[in-house]
């Protein structure tokens, strides 16, 4: 039975697109057949994060308007078996798509694929309504900041108002150093406020920017701590109960150096 997961946040710039790209690529690495859909009509960016921008021929709006067949618009990622992108239109506005269109699109995609991941645009208007319309469940992305958590709380309510089950949470841009100094809300603080199950924590790390520069999802790099974080998130999305590591203590320079040399164990899981 295929499943459609929407990645949403309310607030812009918290990492929905990065999360969507890495979750989709992570699922494909696990042998699943996955389509990741860019639902941000007019501001497409998922193609760039995945490094597939030069291969776009048709887009989501053209599929919906019947200008091309669904299969013609899907871009196959050559780096991993089973990963496909359905790009957004760049020159249309959100009014070009209605929730019923998305429901039909998702139904059609589920015929040949096990997972449909929808990268939801920021905001709570048309783009959000379209994105949740065809979804079976939602992942809410937030960062440990007041504004992002406030919007996440709002989005959780809206997701439930659309008759989806309780969403799950991804905490992005987590900075253990700041958390240990008491300058950033930790995981328990955030979970106390949002009160939904946690699927993962992604540390704030330069690998995210470097991989975006190159158009290479960081989940492909199993030596990156961010790549590892996305691999664990993928496992948990698949229902496997892998532990979420405790990023909360700052290891200090010496331990970091020993780890780098391979003489100390990696971070302990909780």
């Amino acid at each position, binding site marked *: 039975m295929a499943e459609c997961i929407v990645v949403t946040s309310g607030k812009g710039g918290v990492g929905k697109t990065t999360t969507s790209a890495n979750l989709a690529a992570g699922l494909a690495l696990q042998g699943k057949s996955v389509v990741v859909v860019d639902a941000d009509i007019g501001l497409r960016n998922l193609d760039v994060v995945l490094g597939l*921008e030069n291969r776009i021929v048709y887009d989501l709006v053209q599929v919906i308007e019947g200008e091309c067949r669904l299969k013609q618009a899907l871009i196959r990622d050559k780096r991993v078996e089973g990963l496909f992108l359905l790009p957004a239109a760049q020159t249309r506005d959100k009014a070009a798509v209605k929730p019923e269109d998305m429901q039909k699109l998702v139904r059609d995609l589920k015929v040949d694929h096990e997972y449909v991941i929808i990268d939801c645009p920021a905001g709570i208007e048309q783009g959000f309504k379209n994105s949740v319309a065809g979804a079976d469940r939602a992942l809410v992305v937030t960062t440990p900041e007041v504004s992002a958590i406030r919007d996440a709380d709002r989005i959780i309510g809206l997701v439930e108002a659309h008759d989806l089950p309780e969403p799950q949470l991804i905490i992005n841009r987590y900075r253990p150093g700041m958390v240990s100094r008491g300058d950033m809300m930790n995981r328990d603080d955030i979970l106390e406020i949002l009160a939904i199950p946690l699927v993962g924590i992604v540390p704030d790390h330069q690998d995210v920017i470097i991989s*975006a*520069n190159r158009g290479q999802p960081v989940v492909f790099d199993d030596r990156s701590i961010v790549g590892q974080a996305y691999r664990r998130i993928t496992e948990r999305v698949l229902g496997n109960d892998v532990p979420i590591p405790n990023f909360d203590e700052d290891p200090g320079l010496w331990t970091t150096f020993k780890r780098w040399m391979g003489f100390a164990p990696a971070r302990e899981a909780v």
Partner: protein
Amino acid sequence: MLALLQKLQDAFAPSRPASKDEAKQRLKLLLIHDQVDLPPMQLERMKTEILEVVARYCEIDPDEGVEFRLNREDGQVSIISCVPVRRVICREA
């Protein structure tokens, strides 16, 4: 120890261009395509068709390399093409 060797190997491996340069290069191309609303695949198709037309009149020298790209200067986008020709095909009047 293996991990250490791997890291040393990485450190001395021939390096790719800096990721920020890759980013800038990709971005420049993206902005051009966004401005003219011409997806890269469409550009490729146009190139093929234009070359077909040129080939009806001239013998193209593919070894010399055919240049066909979009260029952006002062916000103005143009198509730059350079097609090396071996000889013009004589046509009956």
